């Protein structure tokens, strides 16, 4: 079965979620979007092994219950970040958050307040999809 790779969005904000969705639609991204509203939910799914591997995590840092950075750390411990990739999409522009995210294995850090953030996210997803076209 041939299929687009999976993009796991962990985002509580409806508008931001819609913005990502529309980016998918507008750019006809070759990927399937799965969305979780908070970190706990996403982590539970990860534990259950519900995610395809490799997949691309798009994580907001400012999440209810489990903050994004903790989720990243947990995913790393579950060895997801060996083959999966993670991108941070956040309102935080704190340098410490950025550095922390990179240390935990995030490959990109996008600021929501930047106009071009969604385009850049689209590029990253496109690139990821090209590298991981499912051929089974």
């Amino acid at each position, binding site marked *: 079965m041939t299929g687009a790779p999976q993009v796991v969005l962990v985002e509580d*904000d409806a508008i931001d979620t*819609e913005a990502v969705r*529309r980016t998918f639609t507008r750019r006809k991204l070759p990927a399937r979007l799965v969305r979780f509203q908070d970190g706990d939910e996403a982590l539970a799914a990860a534990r259950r092994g519900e995610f395809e591997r490799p997949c691309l995590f798009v994580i907001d840092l400012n999440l209810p219950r489990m903050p994004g950075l903790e989720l990243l750390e947990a995913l790393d411990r579950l060895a997801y970040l060996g083959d999966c990739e993670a991108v941070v999409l956040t*309102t935080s522009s704190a340098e410490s958050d950025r550095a922390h995210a990179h240390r935990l294995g995030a490959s990109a850090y996008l600021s*929501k*307040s930047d106009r071009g953030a969604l385009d850049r996210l689209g590029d990253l997803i496109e690139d990821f999809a090209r590298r991981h076209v499912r051929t089974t």
Partner: protein
Amino acid sequence: MARARSDLFERIVEVAPSAILMTDGTGHVKLVNAEAERLFGWARDELVGQPIEKLVPVRWREAHPGHRASFMESPKPRTIGAGRDLFALRRDGTEVPVEIGLAPIDVAGAIHVVATVVDLTERRLAETRFRVAVESSPHAIAMVDENGIIVLANHELERLFGYTRSELLGRSIDSLVPERLRDAHPDHRSAFARDPRPRAMGTGRSLFGVRKDGQEVPVEIGLAPIESRDGLLVLASVVDITERQRAEDRFRRAVESAPNAMVMVDARGGILLANSRAGQIFGYAPAELIGRPVEMLVPSRFREAHPELRESFYRDLRSRPMGAGRDLFGLRRDGSEFPVEIGLNPLETPDGTLVLASVIDITERKRIEETRFLTTMQLERTNRELTRAKRDLELAVARLERSNEELDEFAYAVSHDLRSPLRGIENLATWITEDADESLTGDARRWLDLIPERIERMDRLLEDLLAYSRAVRAASSVEETDCHELVGDVLSMLPIPESFRVQVAIYLPLVKIHRVPLERVLMNLVDNAVKHHDRDRGTIEIFGRLVDEGSIELEVRDDGPGIPPQLRERCFGLFRSMSDRGGTGVGLALVKRVVENRGGSISIHDNQPRGTTFRLLWPVEP
């Protein structure tokens, strides 16, 4: 009867305590009493019938009959040997000093002579002892008889008056008195004779003696009466006080020339000496103080206790300040008082222990102390006020800094956090436009179309606000800067239209400055000059010079519309854009903030013939 009287007479003679002999007219011994036997050493019968010359020393024996003959010529009682040395010869050949009284006596019609012989050995011995004592006295001593004739003089007297002893003996004591006093001297002598008791001569007066060479010598004289058989003798002991007076003079001169007031007081509190300074501070002539009680210089309220205090000083004689710890005051003649400090020094003198008091008028010192005290109080108060003011100021500055920081944080948070909801609104507006498509009415579409422009504007505002709040947060380092190059960099980074001419005139050496913020400031100023120009073509001048070691001056001049003087201060305020040419009004506020944060200043002036000059003073770092 005669027989009986003769016996009685003989018995009386026999027991008389003096040696008695009787000779006849030819000088042969007729009678000898027991005392005569004892004195001469001969037995009675060895003498009776012998010539009296047997008892006369050989050297005088030959002349003796002549003396006898002359007595017999006019036989009257008399004494021989008075005033000159007379000796009798004893059996053993020794001589004995004697005084002899001779009296004629008629025995059965024939003149006989009764000689009473007194042994002067003891008296002579006493006299000798007296002379030796007088001679060895360290004082000059004269013994004078009733007529003022010197009968005894010692070596010291010779030395003191310059006469030899033989010149002195027999001379009138009056001749040793200076001529001016000489006439009165016999009266003084008589006065002494009337009341003869040991005393000092001329108490209280200065006495002088006159030497053989006419020179006068200050002396002190003690007188003592000696009753003698020759009448009243007076022993005068004369002390040369030249040295003592010289020492006293030296002392007086030292006291006089002392810088302090000095008062010498005796044990009874009488003033013996006061120097001019003492007179001066108490308002008297020094002579007016002499002999007066020292209490006259003490304020009346302390006067009663003063004698007791004086006595307590005598009980513990040592140099010390008077009234330790207490404030002391002196009393002037006019009744006014003044603060004093007094040092007390005991002084051993021939006249007893005296006290030399050194008095310092400390009015001036007290005044200075008072002034200093007041000044110190004033200073302390001022200091306290200053400290308080400083603390208030520091608090205010700290509050201001904190509130500035809070403001910065606020501006930063606001500008940052407002952006993401703004992004959301932008998204929503876009989606409505996309999704509604043709279903929107004309007006709704028009209003919707206005949203992006407002969002754009708000974005710019937030961005500038962010820049403003970050402006002074940015770390900066001092760099050695070529300002011509710096201006070149600024110009290259700005989109300056072809129609604008830029002239650069920088007269500056390499300077150590905070380069990055200056670059930012210049960029803003040049950008403003272009953006706010009211014509298509324009000229911008950038000028630089060194003001002094501490700062450089940079001017950015344009030939734009200019800024009216009354708006110049306002245009540095936040959100005070003067035109609608796309500025948010943050630029100049940011410029001013950066300039002042670095210790510089900026001002707006007219440019000629039109336009604005921004004059910037930027500090040079050491």
